[in-house]
């Protein structure tokens, strides 16, 4: 177990939901990301997730804090690391709020920021036995990722 946000074990949705439930919160919005069986026309057999763990933990903690500051919500977040088969959950987010609007907004915020900022990578293994590192930026629009997009929003150390 790489706690608290990264784990090598299958994600436990029930625990995640229970961890944010409370009598004054009327709704829980959730997002679960699953391993897809195809990418760019190729049949995917499994994915291998890796992370820069200390930084990934810190970024996840920052994102959760930001969401809980912007909205009256409580956030639970878990991302799996290691080898995942098709159909398994790679990420799960549960956001509890007094009302559904805030829950949905905050849940969307958490997954989008996670994809943008958290240092996690995945290698896809294909049906023909070959593998490749996934580059979402290239997959979507053919452009190279922009280091300034993240760096300028972050904070210089020291």
């Amino acid at each position: 177990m790489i706690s608290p946000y990264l784990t090598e074990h299958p994600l436990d949705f029930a625990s995640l939901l229970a961890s944010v439930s409370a009598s004054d919160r009327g709704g829980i919005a959730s997002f679960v990301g699953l391993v897809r069986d195809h990418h760019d026309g190729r049949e995917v057999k499994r994915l291998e997730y890796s992370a820069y763990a200390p930084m990934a933990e810190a970024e996840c903690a920052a994102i959760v804090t930001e969401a809980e500051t912007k909205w009256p919500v409580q956030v639970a977040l878990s991302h799996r690391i290691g080898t995942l088969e098709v159909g398994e959950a790679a990420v799960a987010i549960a956001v509890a709020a007094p009302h559904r609007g805030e829950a949905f907004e905050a849940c969307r915020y958490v997954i989008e920021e996670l994809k943008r900022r958290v240092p996690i990578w995945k290698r896809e293994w294909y049906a023909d036995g070959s593998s490749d590192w996934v580059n979402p930026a290239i997959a979507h629009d053919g452009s190279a990722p922009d280091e300034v997009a993240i760096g300028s929003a972050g904070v210089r150390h020291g």
Partner: protein
Amino acid sequence: MTASVETVTVKVLLFASYADWIGRDTVEVSLPASATVADLVRQLRDEFPQADRLPTRPLSAINAVHATADSPLREGDEVALLPPLAGG
């Protein structure tokens, strides 16, 4: 080892595709004191022929905080070169 005032020594962390390309996941690099992340990448290209596949301005982090290619390096920094992020 001792670092003079004119140089800084940093530990470079490589991940995923970058680690594959260069064939290792950590490298120690000494640079002029005013060096930036971009300077570090240039030096890696000089030292490792395989590093020419690295972008000239890759995503990076210094001591586990997102940085830019223009961020200055300090003695003992842990500099991570981050391939395109693919979490979720």
